């Protein structure tokens, strides 16, 4: 299969007072279409930084990122925005719904940004799929944490993304709710044939992916194929 994401010699440094802080050092990764990947590691290992760079949300200090066959580095902010809108979905630990939009409006948003007509129908179908048929016109503040994350799931899949980034998707949820969201995420991922990259501390969640990349102090310390998961997924 073709690589959907390639990272070559990726480094990231921040200025911290008078000295430079190295967060990522010469990372090389290649992720193929349809893979499910977990990026794990202790706090401060560079997981979130790596995800931000891979999702074209930030610029690296050095190194190259290729997404969907295109080199990201030279793209303008507008070109990156279009790329994210058309090909990438996001799920965040703190849900990140727009508080002033209803559930359905939040879900429609990526399609509306593309100028797609009739987004409402698709959004309603997805909300139905995640079990929120009766909550469509509710504002985020009127929904529970689990319901908010399900809205976020529906939004992440509405543009039929090639690549889905999930940042600790169950980190803010209790065990049962987390399990429901997890299973919905994997189900949708399978149905839409999306490549999934999850950033997580949770070894159980990581174990459900086909590949686990472990980071420590900005370096890839292991990159293993999870055979049992690959078989089950």
């Amino acid at each position, binding site marked *: 299969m073709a690589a959907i994401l390639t990272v070559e010699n990726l480094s990231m440094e921040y200025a911290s007072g008078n000295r430079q802080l190295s967060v990522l050092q010469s990372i090389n990764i290649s992720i193929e279409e349809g893979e499910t990947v977990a990026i794990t590691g202790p706090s401060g290992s560079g997981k*979130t930084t790596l995800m931000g760079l891979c999702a074209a*949300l930030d610029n690296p200090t050095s190194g190259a990122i290729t997404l969907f066959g295109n080199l990201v580095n030279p793209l303008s*902010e*507008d070109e990156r925005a279009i790329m994210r809108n058309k090909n990438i979905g*996001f799920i965040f630990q703190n849900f990140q719904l727009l508080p002033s939009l209803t559930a359905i*409006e939040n879900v429609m948003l990526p399609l*509306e940004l593309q100028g797609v007509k009739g987004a409402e129908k698709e959004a309603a179908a997805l909300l139905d799929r995640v079990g929120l048929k009766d909550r469509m016109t509710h504002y985020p503040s009127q929904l529970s944490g689990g319901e908010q994350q399900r809205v976020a799931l529906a*939004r992440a899949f509405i543009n039929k993304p090639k690549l889905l980034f999930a940042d600790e998707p169950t980190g803010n949820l209790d065990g049962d709710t987390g399990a429901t969201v997890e299973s919905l995420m994997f189900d949708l991922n399978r149905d839409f044939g999306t490549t999934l990259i999850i950033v997580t501390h949770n070894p159980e969640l990581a174990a459900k992916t086909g590949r686990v990349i472990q980071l420590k102090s900005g370096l890839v310390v292991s990159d293993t194929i999870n055979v049992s998961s690959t078989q089950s997924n």
Partner: protein
Amino acid sequence: MSHFLFLLRTAYKDSRKNRSKLALFMSSIVLGVTALVAINSFNYNLRKEIDREAATLLGADLAASSNRPGEVEVMQILDSLPAEKARQMELMSMAYIPKTDETQFIRLKAIEGNFPFYGKIKTYPIEAAATFRSGQNALVDESLMIAQGLVTGDSIKVGKSMFEIVGKLSGSIGSTGAVSTVAPAIYINMASLDSTGLVQPGSLIEYAYFYRVAEDFDVDKWKSTRKKLFRSDNLRVETVQDRKQNLNQAFSFLNYFLNLVAIVALLLGCIGVASSVLIYVKSKTNSIALLRCLGMKPWDAFLVYFIQITLLGLIGVIAGAIIGALIQSILPLLLKDFLPVSVNMPLSPRAIIEGFVVGLSVTTLFSLLPLVTIRNISPLRTLRAAVDETAGKRDYLRYAILAAIFLVLTGFLWILTSSLVTALAFVAGIVVAYFLLSGFAYLTIKLLRKSIPTNAGFVLKQGLSNLFRPDNQTQTIMVTIGMGAAVLTTLIILQSILLNNVSLMDKGKQPNMILYGIESNQIDSLKDLTIAYKLPVIQQVPVVTMKIDGWKGKTKAQWLEDTTMNSKKWAVNREARVSYRDTISDDEKLISGTLSNYKGGTDSIFVSLGTTFAEALDVSLGDEIVFNVQGTRLVTYVGSMREIEFRNLSTRFFIIFPNGVLEKAPQFQVLVTKTPDNTTMSKYRSAVVKSFPNVSVIDLTTILQSVNDILNKVAFIIQFMALFSLLTGMIVLISSLMLSKYQRLKESILLRTIGATKSQIIRINATEYAFLGTLSAGTGVGIALITSFLITKFQLDLDYNISWLPVLGIMVGLILITVVVGMLNSRDVVNNPPLEVLRKENE
């Protein structure tokens, strides 16, 4: 198009749950535009009214006036005008009211002919406007009638003559209410003027001649061909057109003041706009980051919020224009005592359009400053709370917006003041004040950081540290509160300086009463009367009136033909009131030369000149001046120069002759005294008016009272206008404190969570806000002290005597307001459980 509609829809949806957050933004715009429209409407209507009423104000097509009777030659020219003629003589005098046994300083107007030709003398009963024109009848100013309890039919004695009051005068031609407060007018006919005995050689009389021409006669053209001739005499010739110009000039100060207030209100409004939009953008950062993360382009994200702000701004500007148009109708009521015309207040389309255009432009520009930062909000914020988007970047668009703000403000001020220099000076003043305030804030933060004692209590340390912690609003708050404080305090200080300078004239041994128009044969009896009242004769000086016939070897006529003449007209044409003595008085200083005695015979006469007069006539020591003393030519030389102090009430003369020259010339005397109290003053004044009816008495207490009255009215207007600035300032203050609220909220919640008591949180916040208030108000007042000092010294030329109480009042008031608004902002944290507050803020 569909993309724009999407942005419009997103803007609408996004604003749904946040409109209350934009209330401050709206209030700032509404107040700023209200002030602008109200004040400019009034200004334009006043100008229009002056134009419309100019003929009525002048009362004639052409009026000529002078402080001496017109020269025969000039009068012949004026009388050749094919016109109906009228004449008026006006002088200040004392009137005695038998009914109350009191006296009053008045303005006597004796009229001959059908003046005014345009407009009417407003009287009650109406027919009194005709009956006073014959016999011993008088019209008396309404204010005097009310003050003395006079009614039609009562008597009033002016000079030596008793008049019957035939009517109440409710408005004289071309003067304002403020003038009649100082000296109420009494109208009599010209034929009865002689009987008062007030017309004496040397009496201060204003002569006026009025002409009404046929409608098709071009009086301005007629005047312009004879301009030179009128100029050679000390005669002011005025047509309706001239009056319009003069009035507009006279009211330019009022215009400037009102413009200043409007602009300050608008500017404060703009600061309010910028800071409330900044609050809004800050509260929206996460949503913007998410939109960006989901694929919205930077400029589209900017447009979503720009549309929201512009549409709300538009509503605010329209509301401001409507409220301003309504409020304008109050202004003429406030200012009626200072206006020569009653101002109708129709809607002024120009003011409304100007308010709309300027309001919308500055609102847009000032809100753009925080709005353009939206472009730079990183989508990475969805993953991390702390992202520094500005690190190492310069946003040139912000510089371009600042430049546009500068241009728009300068342009608007230029239109308003018709002077590019004034406009630039004003904008420069604001920039300097801004840098002073923010510079001081910067220094304070630096100093605080180093100087908080390590052993200070937790509350004090925490409160003061908030002033320099990351994301502090110290600089913004200091600039906004400081600006408001500076403007208000400057206005109040200047008002108190004016009042204090007038009051000082009466302090200590300074004279407070002048008696003038005393005939030489009355002086001894008057001195006896003064001594009988145990009052000192501080000065008794003779006064001789004369004209200047020539100087430095040329006649006046020759000089007037000479294009190289540097002399000022007022010095050349004035009827000089001259005294004679061989000594220097207390309020004079000899600058050069000596006071030379006159030895009689062919000895040269050396006169002493006041420096101001010498400069105006363009003469120096030794130069020749020829005077015409009521027909007799006197050749004199400049023997000395004096600097004259004009601060207190006493006689002072630009020209002093030596003793022995003018003793035999027709003259009158002036006596200066000091009364210890109002009762003695009133009794003495009555006695003088009864025994010497031709003598005029000017007492400083009455003048002081009138000036106080006028200044109090002015103060009220200033305060009303300043209210606009104050209200807008309050909005700005609230906006700025709201900004700091967002920074402090989480910290306070955390402190509450780990066990800080309600009282500790209150004290921490109170410390921070009290310090902020003190610093801001202090700096603002400091700027006001410097500004008012410069204006007082270099513009008003007065002593810098400040009443500290109102200044202190402003300071304490502002500190209290800052603390109260700050505390109100944090009441949620103090009164509710921490998580409830957090939930509410996140909704």
